[in-house]
């Protein structure tokens, strides 16, 4: 069942300098019950605005939004249910825990608004704090807690009323990398345990891929592609998605006699199967860890190592191909030195129309 449905949602803002700006342009989207769905895109792509539209902090200029089958924003009927009546949980990037309340009071706040009885409140707060691993800190104030702990309070506060839907707006961006990784996992675990529908807004592709069942990539107010992380990563519909989802090598090639040549080197064909509908000039995309290096005598495109950079968990090589440079990553155990000849092989290349 679809928990959240967006139909033709458009949001325009009036600005002083640029006139009307369309931040969200005809979004059609349905998020299924119990899935974790990410909005991924660079800043200004409209992902946060969309989330605020769903939360009810903004009114759509056009279109309608349904949550759990109930219309909450319908522009044609001038209907916009206020945020407090949408029954959502939400976590903000800035944590937004109230500094004048202790942990217990923060988490109990939504229950107090609902006029839940004291015993019931105590029980539910305890349960929520257990879920996020903060038991025992009830009487502490946010100022005495770390950023990670504050974010857990925010999470506990968001789930304490047992909402069906949780909105997360860049929830991990303010945390340090180690913590970010473990929090991803915890959010995911919680989502599965409570069978929550989660919308997760982020600009970090690794984060989006790690947490989502499905995701949407957007850019400049438009949805570019929607699908599972694997679908988007392995079958991107555009160069933008390919480039945004991971480090990439884009190689401009010339097609001659059914073979592909790197621009600037028409002597050695690239070991890449050419699709039948290829135009004369194409761009082929691959990723640094999908390029293999082997000794000079072996199969592959002959080249040499221009530069070697050791990284913590791999070695990065810059390898010329015609007039262009390929970035290649290999495990440390595959070792070449600078200037050494090598053969280059490509796995899973993806073709895009030529772009300069």
């Amino acid at each position, binding site marked *: 069942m679809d928990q959240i449905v967006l139909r033709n949602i458009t949001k325009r803002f009036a600005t002083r300098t640029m006139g009307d700006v369309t931040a969200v342009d005809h979004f059609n989207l349905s998020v299924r019950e119990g899935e974790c769905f990410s909005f991924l895109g660079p800043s200004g792509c409209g992902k946060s605005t969309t989330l605020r539209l769903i939360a009810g902090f903004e009114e759509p200029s056009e279109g309608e939004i349904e949550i759990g089958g109930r219309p909450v924003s319908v522009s044609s009927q001038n209907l916009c249910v206020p945020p407090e009546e949408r029954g959502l949980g939400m976590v903000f990037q*800035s944590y937004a825990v109230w*500094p004048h309340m202790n942990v217990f009071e923060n988490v109990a706040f939504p229950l107090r*608004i609902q006029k839940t009885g004291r015993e019931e409140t105590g029980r539910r707060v305890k349960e929520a704090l257990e879920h996020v691993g903060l038991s025992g800190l009830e009487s502490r104030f946010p100022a005495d807690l770390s950023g990670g702990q504050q974010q857990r309070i925010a999470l506990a506060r968001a789930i304490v009323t047992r909402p069906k839907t949780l909105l997360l707006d860049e929830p991990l961006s303010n945390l340090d990398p180690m913590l970010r990784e473990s929090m991803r996992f915890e959010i995911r675990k919680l989502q599965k345990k409570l069978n929550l529908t989660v919308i997760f807004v982020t600009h970090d592709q690794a984060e989006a891929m790690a947490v989502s069942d499905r995701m949407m990539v957007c850019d400049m107010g438009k949805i570019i592609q929607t699908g599972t992380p694997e679908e988007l990563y392995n079958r991107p519909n555009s160069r933008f998605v390919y480039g945004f989802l991971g480090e990439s090598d884009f190689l401009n090639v010339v097609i001659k006699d059914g073979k592909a040549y790197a621009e600037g080197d028409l002597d050695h064909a690239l070991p890449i199967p050419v699709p039948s509908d290829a135009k004369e000039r194409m761009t082929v995309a691959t990723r640094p860890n999908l390029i293999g290096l082997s000794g000079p005598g072996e199969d592959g495109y002959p080249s040499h190592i221009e530069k070697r950079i050791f990284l913590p968990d791999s070695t990065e090589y810059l390898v010329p191909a015609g007039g262009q440079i390929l970035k290649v990553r290999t495990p440390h155990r595959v070792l070449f030195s600078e200037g050494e000849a090598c053969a280059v092989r490509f796995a899973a290349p993806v073709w895009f129309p030529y772009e300069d």
Partner: protein
Amino acid sequence: MKRYGRDRMSAGGGLLFGIDGVMTALCYLFLLIVVVIPVVSLGYHAFFYEGRFDPSLFAAQIAEPANRAALWNTLKIAFWVTLFGTAAGTFFGWLLGRSDIPAKGLMRAMFSIPYMFPPFLGAMAWDLLLNGRSGYLNKFLMSAFHLSSAPFNINSVGGIVFVECSYYFPFVFMQVASALERMDPTLEESARIAGAGRLEVFRRVTLPLILPAVSSGALLILIASLAHFGVPSILGFSQGIYTLPTRIYAVISRTGGSFEGIRSGAALSIVLVAVMAVAFMIQKKAIGSRGYDVIRGKSMNPSPVRLRGARIPLFILCIVSLVFTVVVPLVMIFLVSLVRAYGLPLTPANFTLKNYSRIFAASGTAESIKNSLFVSAAAGVLCMIMGTLIAYVVRRIRPRGKGILEALAMLPYSLPGTVLAIGVILAWSGGFFGISLYNTIWIILIAYLARYLSFALQSSSAALLQIHPSLEDAARSCGASHAQSILDVTLPLIRPAMVSGFFLIFLPAMREVTTSILLYGPYTRTLGVQIYSLRDAGMIPQAAALGSIAIVIIVVCNAVVTQITKDRKGV
């Protein structure tokens, strides 16, 4: 974490008494003259007589019923002013900081006007309007509604509270408006998501979060009102209503400035200081140790609260408040300055410009403007230099005892002007090494320096905190010596703060009455004193004329400072 610690002391390159030492010594010397000696003298003379401990004077002052009445009035007025001023300031602060009321920018500028408008001129204006016997408005109301007695009497405790309120509510207003502006909007949004409606969000989240701002603004009102001289002296003297500061002035002027009178004043000063100390302690207790960090998150504009139907009525309320606090007194002073004789109806037939020419003919007016300009400018420049120097020593050189240095420089901030003036008189009228500055402009300058030093220190300190020490270190690694790096880098960077610090002192000094009234001599009247004495002598239209001139000077200077701070580059 990087440590920029005391080790910087050694950065001079091993000079035993380098530039750092000279700067530190200079700061102590300055504070000794303007703060330490006056304060010690005050304490000494209140309790010691001819070298012996003698609390009898102090006890006698406390026992005196008139003084106790003054103490009671002071507390009463301060309480009500703080209460009403805080309520009004919070309300308007929220209205302009969070709601969708129209013309916000303009209104914010207007609401800060009472800040620079001299309260004693406001009191004068209201006295002209609502004096129990001869107020213009009272007379008008009496004839319009056939009343047998005046409907309002501004010469009362209530009147004093009303006028002080209208000048002091901006203390809370500005704090609240800026706290709301800096507050992370997601703190409120997350409460909405939690199910709370707008009112509930305000009550449970917004209000508690701005409480520290409200209470620190309230404390400012409280100490300002406790120490205030102008309004109660203008509105209260005729009815025998005294507060501690006006009572001290009355005691001293009654004895014609004799040593006995000044000693009595010193003893009363101790009472006033004790009251202030209690106020500080109460505020500390009330706020507790918890300070909130309401950091701003994403630069998402918080959606303003829609006032809907109340929007226009509230807008009108703002306009009316502005008219009462700003426009009415201003217009009144100006109109009265044109009237041929006080008491005549304010009709064009009775208008003349003669008052303006007449005040310059009166003895001391031109002199008083000159004096005020000189002493205010001198205080501005010296405070700015010394404030910056102390800030630099405290923040960057960090010698032993930097806490003492800072505390000494900030001490006069919490002392009422009246008290400072008495301290300065006791210290520099022959008390030390026979140096007597009494009846000279220099004694006024010393009092101003003490009074306004903290302003300069705060503005330079804040500016220095913005300038990372690495900027100076970078200059040194480029081959500049310590002194050169200060001159080439630090000084140019805090120059804008120094300039605005100068005006922060110059403007209030131009309209100062409280300390000058105790320190002036026959040839050293200041502008404020001159207006005050003209009015005291019954030359009310002339006092209004000089008041109008003072207002023009202040407005022009304010326009200049706004222009300068707008143009600052870099930083």
